[in-house]
């Protein structure tokens, strides 16, 4: 036994993904364009909401505690919408993972998208895989330095734009853009930009696959959501193995055997055996060279694989060249393995149709759950009122005796006007007809609530000395508020506290 134990630290192996083209590469270019476009441009989309409200289509207004999404406005007490959306996002992730494996990781995860963008820049400045490997091994020279500096500078520009776009979601974008440039923006804006610039630069430029392998919990969770029926990127080893590139050699060996064959009848069999000695995989390493995670998909399912499908494109290209059918590396389910070649079942075998993989009890269940939450949110969105009230009875003291012996309760009523104009709100009571209602500071029963605000109004409810409510322990009560412009109404239940001296 050696005295020095083996090191537990594995240094990062640099990865130089080669350029590839094909269906999935094109799909990923489109997804990258759309997602980055949305991210960078969305804060600049305007949406007219009237004079008292911001005109930014998507705005998380932390300062005024409002969230705007086009025609939808969320107040803090409606945070369940955000919770619901998060639940939907979670269920959606489960659904996609159980049907198609780690499609989120492979196509839309920001880490994947920005790494892809950074790789594009890297390839553009330093060249493709072989040129980059040469550059890494080369001694430091003026050329190497200038290439590196150019690359880092472009990365930094992208990073600053990324960090910069983030803060625009939290305040008026054009105003903030100006103040960021003139150095008038709040410190927290610069700090956010700086932090996100740093994370984008480091995660996209240097850490890349390390983020997915070591930092992200998703590779561990995915195992619980995938099963052998899930479609995922895989290698048809039963078709590809045994792999090998010396096909000509195998044919030559066959030719020798043919020459020395005992009977003519053996010749076709020898030729067939020669073709069968090797599988379809010619071991060209194209799938490995394009992999952004630096793995070999032919080793089977791996934690590192983000299912970006670039190896499918790379392999299909090669299969086309060597005249073999496509799909040696493909989206496939692990249970779609044909029976052994020498069994009778092999002849009648064909892979399961795609719909059987997608429509399974599990995916249907996730879809149903996802839709139920979604429907609930949509219904909640439509039935929610423009006006609302919350009533909190003042409990210190629970009641006040007036000089004429009447019993008065005090309530803090919060009136919410979610519209863009000042509105006149009328307050009234139901349930107990004999109780009288009064508002602090006015002799009216109406009060003007400013646009897009909550008004705290002190409200008095009085029971005469001989009223049963004055002597009961507590009496149920319902407050109503009516918007005098739209005549929409809202109500809230509460109680009226009496002296509790009824025998």
């Amino acid at each position, binding site marked *: *036994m*050696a*005295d020095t*134990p083996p090191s537990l630290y594995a240094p990062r192996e640099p990865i130089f993904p080669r350029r590839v083209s094909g269906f999935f590469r094109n799909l990923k270019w489109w997804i990258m364009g759309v997602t980055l476009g949305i991210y960078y441009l969305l804060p600049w989309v305007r949406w007219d909401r009237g004079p008292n409200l911001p005109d930014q289509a998507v705005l998380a207004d932390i300062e005024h505690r409002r969230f705007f999404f086009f025609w939808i406005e969320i107040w803090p007490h409606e945070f369940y919408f955000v919770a619901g959306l998060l639940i939907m996002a979670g269920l959606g992730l489960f659904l996609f993972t159980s049907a198609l494996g780690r499609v989120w990781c492979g196509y839309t995860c920001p880490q994947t998208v920005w790494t892809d963008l950074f790789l594009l820049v890297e390839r553009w400045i330093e060249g493709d895989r072989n040129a980059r490997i040469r550059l890494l091994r080369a001694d430091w020279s003026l050329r190497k330095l200038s290439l590196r500096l150019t690359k880092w500078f472009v990365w930094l520009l992208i990073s600053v734009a990324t960090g910069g776009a983030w803060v625009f979601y939290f305040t008026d974008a054009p105003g903030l853009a100006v103040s960021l440039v003139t150095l008038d923006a709040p410190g927290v804006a610069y700090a956010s930009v700086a932090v996100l610039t740093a994370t984008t630069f480091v995660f996209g430029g240097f850490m890349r696959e390390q983020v997915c392998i070591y930092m992200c919990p998703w590779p561990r969770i995915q195992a619980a959501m995938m099963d052998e029926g899930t479609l995922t990127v895989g290698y048809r080893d039963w078709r590809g193995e045994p792999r090998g590139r010396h096909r000509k050699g195998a044919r030559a060996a066959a030719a020798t055997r043919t020459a020395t064959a005992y009977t003519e009848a053996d010749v076709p069999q020898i030729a067939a055996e020669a073709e069968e000695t090797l599988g379809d995989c010619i071991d060209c390493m194209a799938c490995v060279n394009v992999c952004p995670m630096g793995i070999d998909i032919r080793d089977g399912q791996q934690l590192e694989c983000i299912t970006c499908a670039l190896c499918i494109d790379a392999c299909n290209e090669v299969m086309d060249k060597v005249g073999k059918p496509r799909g040696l590396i493909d989206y496939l389910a692990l249970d779609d393995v044909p029976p052994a070649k020498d069994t009778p079942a092999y002849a009648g075998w064909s892979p399961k149709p795609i719909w059987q993989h997608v429509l399974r009890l599990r995916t249907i269940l996730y879809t149903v759950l996802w839709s139920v939450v979604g429907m609930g949110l949509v219904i909640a969105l439509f039935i929610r009122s423009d006006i609302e009230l919350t009533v909190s009875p*003042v409990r*210190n*003291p629970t009641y*006040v*005796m*007036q*000089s*004429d*012996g009447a019993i*008065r309760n*005090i309530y803090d009523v919060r009136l919410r006007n979610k519209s863009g104009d000042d509105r006149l709100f009328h307050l009234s009571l139901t349930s107990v007809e004999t109780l009288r209602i009064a508002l*602090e*500071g006015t002799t009216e029963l109406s009060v003007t609530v400013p646009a897009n605000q909550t008004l705290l109004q*002190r409200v*008095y409810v009085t029971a005469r*000395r001989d009223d049963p409510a004055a002597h009961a322990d507590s009496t149920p009560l319902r407050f109503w508020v009516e918007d005098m412009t739209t005549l929409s109404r809202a109500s809230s239940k509460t109680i009226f506290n009496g002296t509790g001296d009824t025998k």
Partner: protein
Amino acid sequence: MSDHDRKNPVDDVTGTETTGHSWDGIEELNNPLPRWWLWTFYICIIWGIGYTIAYPAWPMISGATSGVLGYSTRGEVADDIAAFRAGNAERDAQLAVSDLTTLSQNEDLYRYAVSSGAAVFRTNCSQCHGSGAAGAKGYPNLLDDDWIWGGDHAAIAYTVRHGVRNETDGDARYSQMPAFGDMLAPEEILSVVEQVRALAGEEHDAALAQEGAALFADNCAACHGEAGKGDRDLGAPNLTDAIWLYGGDREALTQTITYSRFGVMPPWGPPRLTEAQVQAVATYVHQLGGGEADPAPAN
């Protein structure tokens, strides 16, 4: 390191020395501390030394070292308070000279007065009047519509500023009910109690009240009025309403008439509270529910 230097047994699998500790046959390897951990530890020590120099740290006989930065949490709070004071200075100056009867028209200043008045009330008034301003026996409830000295803005502000029956402020509200135990016989007092209960509409002994009526007219009506309605100018409470500062049962009334009461409220005007704070707390108390309408301005 060769084997004979080792004090403890060596683990066969890894070839590493163990600490010699064994639990159910499981032994602990004596690996050196990770280098990064060790350096973090050293840096923490250096940082700790620097911290104790810069900030208050070492206990001395009377207090602690103050640190070269001169920082203290108490000083930070003082700075925060000063910053808030400075931020409110303009509104305070405006509030100090405002007419409270028309303050509610200036929405911003009115809201400031109510919320700062609430803070003043919690700090200075809630000890006697309660945090909800509901009062207690001998300490008036400020939520109801019964006021001994008046319940409009001006009257409340005056009471806050000068207090009641104190000796520090010459302008304090002042009234003194005599202790009738010295002037009336005990049975006479009992009859006056019945008369007071009759005036308040409470259950009473009609015959005794009849006797007490004459005594009431002679001794009490001068301040409380013929009908017992009280007089705010004299600070004489209304005896006919449902509210009793010291209780309306026979025992409490007998006690009040025999020994009288003498509730004191300190003056809260400057220097105790600032003029703006007096105005604020008066505004706050007025909007609690019992505030009375201000008299129309004389013009």
